[in-house]
């Protein structure tokens, strides 16, 4: 067991992937000598050389598009998109090409491309640096989307992403890059299914589902609720596509109440999808409507007011109060 930050865990996970798979390579802007703007790839170019840790031209469509070509030639590229808001120049390549290649080739071609995207707010940054666009990708069949919330998952999930034969986006909670935690670098980490949700805290009165940067917030809210005598179960979703509805359903059948929290705007978001599915699967167990806690229907606001935008402990507790009031 080793203690490290999420950023370091991803770094170590990438190092392991590059070591284990000679056909894997990293591509992105400033990922070479600089080690990426968040230093997630720090030191890797020195170890693996510029052909496997590739500083690319500043062009996101180019990064994704050439990664597709490399994958067609038998390689496993891991692309870094510098910030969430900068993925959109590559959106066409991701949605019209990468996601569909296996299907449109009748299963003849596979494109095992990994796309790493630091996402979410709370870092006081300028516009386009704090967004949560995961729903836009979750809506696209052919893609898988995972998001680790702690160093142990980060270490293993990035390696599992590289091994995955489907295209997969890893949304990395950038404001938690420096969150420290224990990482078990030996098995059974590898054996854990990256597409399964984890119940992090058992409870009986309500379930809070969160993922990525809001997992620690959900846990803190559950602790606060416990002081008021409410037993709250917390689930770390871990995978956004596919979503582990079985784990969420089982929890709601026990607690009868569900709150889904994410930084992304609630409208058209992952929370809405979970609410709809759970209303179908656990309708008779529900004591209250599923309540979503998320961003507002507006462009991500300026840094000085982002605290009013981002879901926090109190926003989750307020939703919990509403659910418990039914």
């Amino acid at each position: 067991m080793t203690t490290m930050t999420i950023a370091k865990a991803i770094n170590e996970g990438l190092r392991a992937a590059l070591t284990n798979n000679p056909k894997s390579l990293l591509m992105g802007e400033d990922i070479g000598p600089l080690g990426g703007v968040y230093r997630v790839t720090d030191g890797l170019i020195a170890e693996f050389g510029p052909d496997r840790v590739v500083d690319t031209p500043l062009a996101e469509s180019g990064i994704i598009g050439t990664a597709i070509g490399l994958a067609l030639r038998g390689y496993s590229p891991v692309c870094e998109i510098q910030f969430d808001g900068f993925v959109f120049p590559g959106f066409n390549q991701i949605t019209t090409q990468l996601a569909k290649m296996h299907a449109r080739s009748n299963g003849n071609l596979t494109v095992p491309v990994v796309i790493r995207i630091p996402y979410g707010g709370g870092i006081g940054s300028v516009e386009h640096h704090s967004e949560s666009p995961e729903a836009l990708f979750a809506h696209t069949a052919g893609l898988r989307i995972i998001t680790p919330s702690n160093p142990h998952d980060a270490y293993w999930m990035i390696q599992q992403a590289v091994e995955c034969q489907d295209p997969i986006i890893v949304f990395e909670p950038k404001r938690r890059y420096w969150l420290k935690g224990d990482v078990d670098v030996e098995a059974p980490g590898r054996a854990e299914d990256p597409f399964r949700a984890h119940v992090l805290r058992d409870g009986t009165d309500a379930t809070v589902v969160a993922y990525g940067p809001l997992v620690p917030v959900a846990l803190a809210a559950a602790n606060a609720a416990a002081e008021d005598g409410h037993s709250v179960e917390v689930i770390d979703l871990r995978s956004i596509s596919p979503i582990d509805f079985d784990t969420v359903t089982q929890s709601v059948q026990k607690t009868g109440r569900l709150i889904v929290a994410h930084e992304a705007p609630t409208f058209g978001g992952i929370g809405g999808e979970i609410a709809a599915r759970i209303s179908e699967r656990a309708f008779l167990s529900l004591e209250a409507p599923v309540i979503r806690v998320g961003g507002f229907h507006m462009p991500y606001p300026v840094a000085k007011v982002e605290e009013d935008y981002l879901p926090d402990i109190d926003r989750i507790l307020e939703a919990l109060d509403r659910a418990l009031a039914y």
Partner: protein
Amino acid sequence: MGATHLPATEFDGTGVDDQLEAEAEAVLGEPAAPMVQLLGPDGTLGEDSVFSEYANRLDAEKLRGFYADMAAIRRFDQEATALQRQGQLALWVPLTGQEAAQIGSGRASQPQDYIFPTYREHGVALTRNVDLAELLRQFRGVSNGGWNPKDTNFHLYTLVLAAQTLHAVGYAMGIQRDQQLAASSDPAGTEPPAAVIAYYGDGASSEGDVHESMVFASSYKAPVVFFCQNNHWAISVPSTVQTRIPLSNRAKGYGFPGIRVDGNDVIAVHAVTEWALDHARQGNGPVLIEAFTYRVGAHTTADDPTKYRQSAEEDAWRAKDPLARLEKYLRSAGLADDDYFAKVKADGDELAAYVRRTTHDLETPDIRSAFANTYVEPHPLVAEELAWFEQYSAGFDDGAGSDAAAGEAAN
């Protein structure tokens, strides 16, 4: 060798072309790019200080083969158009007029090379031994691909314009890495070097992906040949809206050679593509070829060119027909006679009959194959939806067959 050293060869342009050249020269402040031409519209073979060497390697059999290929793909094009008119295909994308650009370049490729077409490269598909009946699957609506690219190194058609140019560069970057891996395990280098061709057109040249692909290719000296068929029309928009100078000139800005070739001259197209592929395979980086040609027919069978261009322009380009000029040359050089051309015509009719027969028999897929091919690895949502579909379908019959049930559901 750089673009500036390319020989100037005279191109028998129409008045329209002359006007374009004059305008380009005004923009550039110097003459526009020279046009490589070896076989003129009158069927006489010219000389070129660089590319005649490649043309001279062509024996009679190869030259006759070019003609047979061009005639076959034109006949196929006519048949596919007819099949669309008869409701057997949902859409067809005709290539007539562009046979030399496609056959010449496709025949310059080697089996180890990999080709990324757009969606009009039926002639290139022929040179890569793609079963032309399979090629019609996409247009009959029974597949989004239709052939396995691994069998022929001819990728699926790409309908989002220019997206494939980046795939081509990435693939070429993979070839570079393969060569490095091979160098360590196989110093003798028994694998023949490979290169990639990315096809696109004058319309797609405006897409950002073409720019990004050229930046990546140049930076990494990727072994890729950008083959731009300038057929003068992006559906209804003339090439003058995409560019004010020859598209081949753009290569200079990226730092690699650009060649403008008479795209209706199969011998010249073959020569410049062989040169470009050699250049790329030898590790010298990318090349841009602009094949100056013309889409004689409609953009697709849903298009109506009378809305946006004059028939006089089409007539002027028909006078530069790629098949007619090669036929003139083959006859005058004594390389082919009436019997040969009759045989080619009969072969074309046989191909057409085969395609017609096979198209009728193309199997309609089961939607279950779409469930199966969305992901490589098991996916719970797909499994859940498939299970629902099976249950739903079963409700329409007594278990007599779910195909019938699905059909009934669709009705």
